[in-house]
């Protein structure tokens, strides 16, 4: 067992973990943060995407011990004071979700993408999210949601 201290959604969390424990299971099973979903186990579907020190990673590809002394943001950490993050609101309002299982990962991947560049073209959004799969294939509205949120996030980010 290894002792880790990971700051999750702004709160420092210390725990004993198996060295083989994946970050996603640490989040889901140790911390009960089940918003981060598991879809494939092979780093293909992106349902488990979270931010590590502000950049998107697939939490099924990272060991919990690799996140030691680092900052992790999950979907549960996005809303502030109960208010939706603009991306969450946009995914809801633009119907960028169907069964919703891919949604948290999509939102986290989109957030990372918009942090890098908030003036993305549609093609850049599509290229940037190629690693996040939606099997209900609500892809069109996901693009619309991100475009709408990008507009909203721009003033705050500028």
């Amino acid at each position, binding site marked *: 067992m290894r002792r880790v201290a990971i700051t999750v959604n702004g709160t420092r969390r210390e725990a004993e973990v198996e060295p083989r424990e994946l970050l996603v299971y640490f989040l889901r099973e140790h911390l009960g*943060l089940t918003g981060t979903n*598991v879809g494939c186990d092979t780093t293909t579907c992106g349902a488990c995407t979270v931010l590590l020190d502000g950049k998107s990673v697939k939490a099924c590809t990272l060991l919990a011990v690799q996140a030691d002394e680092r900052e992790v943001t999950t979907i549960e950490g996005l809303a502030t004071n109960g208010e939706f993050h603009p991306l969450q609101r946009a*995914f809801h309002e633009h119907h960028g979700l169907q069964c919703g299982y891919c949604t948290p990962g999509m939102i986290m991947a989109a957030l990372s993408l918009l942090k890098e560049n908030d003036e993305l073209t549609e093609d850049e959004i599509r290229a940037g999210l190629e690693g996040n799969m939606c099997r209900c294939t*609500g*892809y069109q509205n996901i693009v619309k949601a991100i475009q709408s949120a990008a507009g909203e996030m721009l003033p705050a980010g500028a």
Partner: protein
Amino acid sequence: MARLIRTEKEVEGKYTEQWIVVEEDSLDQWPEGPQTTVGRPAARVTGPARARGEAEYTADVQLPGMLHTAVLRSPHGHARVTRLELGPALEAPGVRGVLTPEECEHLTSEPGYPGEPVAAVAADTFAQAEAALARIDVDWEIVEPRLDPDDAVRREELIGEPQRYERGDADRGLAEADVVVEAEYRTQTVLHNALETHQSVCVWEGGRLTVYTSTQFIWGVRAEVAEHFGIPEDRVRVVCRYMGGGFGAKTTPGEYTYIAAQLARKTGRPVRCALTRREENLASGNRHATIQRLVAGAREDGTLTALGGEFTMAVGWDGFQSSTAGPMQMLYACDNVRTVEYGAKLNTGPNAAFRAPGFVEGTFGLECLLDELAAKLGLDPLELRRRNYADSDLVDDRPFSSKNLLECYRRAEPHWGRRDEVRARSEGPWRRGVGLASQIWYGAGGPPSYAWVRVGSDGRAHVITGGQDIGTGTTTALAQIAAEELGLPLDRVEISIGDSDRGPYASISAGSSTTPSLGPAVRAAAADVARQIVEVAAQRHDLEERVLSLRDGNVVSADGGSWGLEEITGLFDDAQIIGKGSRGPNPTGMRVLTFGVQVAEVAVDVETGEIRVERIAAIHDIGRVINPLGASSQVEGGIIQGLGHTLSEQRLLDPESGAVLTQTLDAYKLPTIADVPEIVTELLDIPDPHLTNLGAKGLGEPPIIPTAAAIANAIRDATGADVRSLPITREEMLRALEEARERERAVAGSAG
């Protein structure tokens, strides 16, 4: 008074007769077009929970003391277990129980396909359960697997009886034809791959079993699990609050539910059994492959004189024959039709329903054949389809309850009319073209389904039904229907769904039936409440009931009086006004179907065989549209799944052992967000005047049906090549191009 009637019920083209009880008062349909809430775009009522990561899927259910299961599955196509020693696994760290084939009929010692479950281990963690699996001592006697469907048909190793259908005289029809086309089409096996895998968590408490499960039919699971354990159905509670997709493969309990329930009983602990992605792609169902040997004959003017087809379906070790011949029998007014369907029993995973099973495959064959016929006749493909338009159902000789396919064709014209402009954009090796295909499918839904609605003193409504929302937006559509009937804004309607202990029976979510099955019951329940509110208001304010109605959260009278709903319901303090509603019967003696047409634009690189789908227009006739936003999203989803079916998805097997080579999502190619073309959706939104109090049909399946044929026909338009096999890989594309060149050379040779 309750009225007992005998009526016909249909799910995915299978008709059964059953007794139902219906309410005396039937409601008139709302007028055509958008109402206050129904027919207007609504974001998901469950959207906030989903976007916050708060939606609780079965995958998220964590109960105190819950054990995790790993399942020993056969690595072989066909084998017999000659020794199974579970002792070492029981002694492994964390293990609390094991299950053998002797204890559970859903485990077997003669596995007939790779991935068939043999034994199971429950442990404190999934990692411990997996580690214990490796300690099981098992010897296999390997049997040579049967993998060739044609071979299975020759040997008469079949699932079910061959399905034969004939009307008129197909031989005579072919003899009378001016032009005959014959072709063999093949479709591949595809895998559902819902992002949430098949899974259940089971817990026994005081002789009652609670099953948290990812399912399309909580009442079906309840009945089957109760029967398995020999307990009354009311001792089983089935819960599915949120679900990460189904697509047809989650209609029965599945072995994982029985394993979890049995291990839970054995260990006295809650038990989770969740398939991994690899298990999902081995043993959770598939759309079976088909081989379709088809023939069509027509007169010079395009009138079809005969259609014929021999369909071989690679069903697998178990499963069912989907109706691959259905489109050929139903889509066109052809007097002479003969089909035969064989279901091959093979050492491959059992099939399961997958979004319009049979019709997706059969439409690919039929609609490509029609275009080959049009080319030979020198007729416009859209015109050929119009000339053979069916005014009534020729299979059962019944009128359609409503059919607006001609209007779909008319609305397709501007898209179809882009052909010259699209072709003109061909440049270099890239050839461009346009193709279309028609769609026919079921989607009536049917009884029984029930709903309750209660309105509290705060004037808010709560809709309760025991159905499930498999991710399609059912909850939102049902809330809209209740809001409309009660004259309430949508945000004053709550909805509870997905718990057999907390709501009345509701039907399966399969066969494009959820909205047309549950929606009318919800409207009836809301109308029951509305009637009571009006009665109360009339007595309270000394008015006649007929001058009162519910609008914008108020009770309004014809003379201008208006009272907030909560003023009326608030008379009762904590008490509630409660309504109930049931789904009435489908129209007697009529065929209720959905129709549509899709027009695809493609670009093909004739040197490399690369295919790009650039635009798809989808025009569908599904009766009244409840939520245009959810509906267009469903259409896009169906088309994009169809795109995967057409171009990239395929379960690959090792030809010797039958092992599945595409078990993970890096090997099995789903469409990504970067693969998607422009999609234009047009829904006619014409209520079916004969169908229920809504006139709404189902939409889940229609959009995936014509996509593959529309794309293949666009490829023919672009290149002159006949692709006849799915997925249209570069190899298939290059083969078809070479065949077309050879044909041209032969024509040039004979002309010279």
